[in-house]
């Protein structure tokens, strides 16, 4: 029983990481209708930048977090301006390929600048596990779970209450009508990319606080896909849920069925889910007219 509980908990922790990645995917998909294959690499870039910022002496965790969020907003807006906006009106295939090209460029540049060796990221909360009944959680793991919960709540409020959030929903519903209603669609797209980069920042920080700073962070982008698909590409909160499910499923498969299965359990799960529900669990069916 204890073994099971531990598997589920660590599954939830890993799942919250997937969830953060998936939410980043979903918000871009919702606003612009495309998948950002560079999400993992953006995460990597922000994590390495955060590492460089953390080496500034006397910087506490709160200012560091603020700084990282600011940098990620900047990165998100820059990517949108330089690479995404000029491709407006091009076929989807080319637009998605731009993000794939961008992914390769960012990954190589980061490795060229910072090197491939894994580095220990500073632990601002120490590394003594906190006991909760039969479970022990590291501060980094609590940070991951906490940021997922907080960002989920924030996103829910953002889409329900804030003007920009409602404008974003309107845009994803029908771009032309939104434009006619006076919504600045281009700004919405920039905001979506910035928000997605903020998700990447939290995912990257969580990863670094739990493991270490290494180029494998970018793999999290690909590994976050099953969560995104399970939740439905266009559902932000669904992505968080999908992440938790995939995390737990991977851990249970790894714990009970064999170690190697952990790596692919999520992918097997989505291939099965997609055969039954082609738009994910929470995704909206697209109705197409000829």
């Amino acid at each position: 029983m204890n073994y099971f509980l531990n598997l589920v908990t660590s599954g939830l922790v890993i799942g919250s990481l997937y969830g953060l990645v998936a939410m980043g995917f979903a918000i871009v998909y919702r606003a612009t209708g495309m998948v950002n294959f560079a999400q993992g690499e953006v995460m990597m870039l922000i994590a390495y930048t955060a590492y460089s910022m953390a080496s500034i002496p006397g910087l506490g965790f709160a200012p560091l977090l603020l700084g990282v969020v600011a940098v990620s907003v900047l990165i998100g807006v820059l990517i949108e301006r330089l690479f995404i906006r000029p491709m407006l009106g091009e076929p989807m295939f080319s637009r998605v390929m731009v993000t794939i090209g961008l992914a390769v460029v960012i990954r190589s540049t980061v490795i060229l600048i910072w090197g491939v060796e894994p580095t220990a990221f500073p632990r601002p909360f120490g590394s003594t596990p906190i006991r909760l009944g039969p479970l022990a959680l590291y501060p980094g793991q609590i940070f991951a779970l906490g940021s997922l919960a907080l960002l989920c709540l924030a996103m829910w409020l953002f889409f329900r209450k804030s003007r920009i959030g409602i404008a974003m929903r309107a845009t994803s519903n029908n771009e032309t009508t939104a434009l006619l209603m006076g919504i600045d669609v281009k700004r919405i797209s920039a905001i979506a990319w910035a928000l997605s980069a903020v998700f990447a920042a939290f995912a990257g920080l969580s990863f670094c606080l739990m493991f270490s700073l290494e180029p494998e962070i970018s793999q999290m982008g690909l590994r976050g896909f099953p969560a995104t698909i399970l939740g439905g590409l266009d559902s932000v909160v669904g992505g968080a849920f999908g992440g938790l499910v995939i995390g737990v499923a991977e851990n249970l498969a790894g714990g009970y069925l064999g170690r190697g299965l952990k790596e692919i359990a999520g992918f097997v799960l989505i291939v099965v889910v997609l055969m039954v529900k082609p738009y994910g669990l929470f995704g909206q069916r697209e109705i197409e007219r000829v």
Partner: protein
Amino acid sequence: MRSRTYRTSYAQLVALTDHGSTWAWAAAGVVLLALMPALVGSFGLNILVTIFVLAIGVLGLNLLSGVAGQISLGHAGFLLIGAYAQAILTTDYKLPTLLAVFISGLIAAAASLVVGVPSLRLKGLYLAITTLAFTFIVRHVVLFAEGLTRGSNGMPVEALTVFGLSFKGDQRFYYAALAMLLLFIVITLNLMRTRIGRAWLAVRDHDIAARAMGIDLMRYKLLAFMVSAFYTGVAGAMVALQTRFINVDTFSVLVSIEALAMVIVGGMGRVHGAILGTALIVLLPEALTVAFAVAGDGVKTLLADRIYEVKGLLYGVVILLFLRLEPEGLAGIWRKSKRFWMQWPLSQ
């Protein structure tokens, strides 16, 4: 100026080429390639073989993505299946090597049904991600089915032998690769002008409209996946025969992206584009090595340490530049420059 583009019969519409001179040029090209072993050393020959072998797979991906419009990030998986099928069939089952090449293609085609069947319900990005999942699953199966594949140890591969004639050695294998590429080019060109090729184009342009016109979507999408996987499986078998040793790490997800880069750089849906694109992407790092050798020692050590990253950076930049500046790829540049010279004094 050539001006024979008025077509008066259906036969002319589906003819391989409008101009007889194209055949002469093609023959000249083949002769030039056949003379290559006398002109370049074994290093250059190896690069050419790599281009030929990869071009077979890229032709297949081009049929699927460029002609039938289905994005696939799973071709590294088919390449892996083809390579391992070749190794296993020849070492464990003692099949003749040439026969094994085609059976490897068929095995990859059968495996493609795993992705092909979901593709009937999935579109665009969902499909891309399912094919990506396929690559991960194939890698996993190969790594953990140790009894069959020797797991992470990799497998040695026997050299190509056709009816007792061994194709060991650079020069001989060069001709084998060239012949195989020519065979697949001819198959592709002919496939594109049949009902199947036209049906794929219709599916790419609008699948629901294509169905309304009487094209069985299920049949043609599955067929596109199977044919594409067959090409890639054969390419995988040829890669195995070229390197003579295979390992899972040779076929990472990056290979799928590289292959897509080749398709895009070449120009989607064009046969000569696929080959030009492959050549450009394969030659790019070599050109870089030469350029940096000229640049001096400091840059050379950087390149030695970080060759993989510099290569990656280059792919990325080339993909981005082509998408932004020349969406039609090298095939488009070819077409435009050809038109420029043909209409020369009057060209704009």
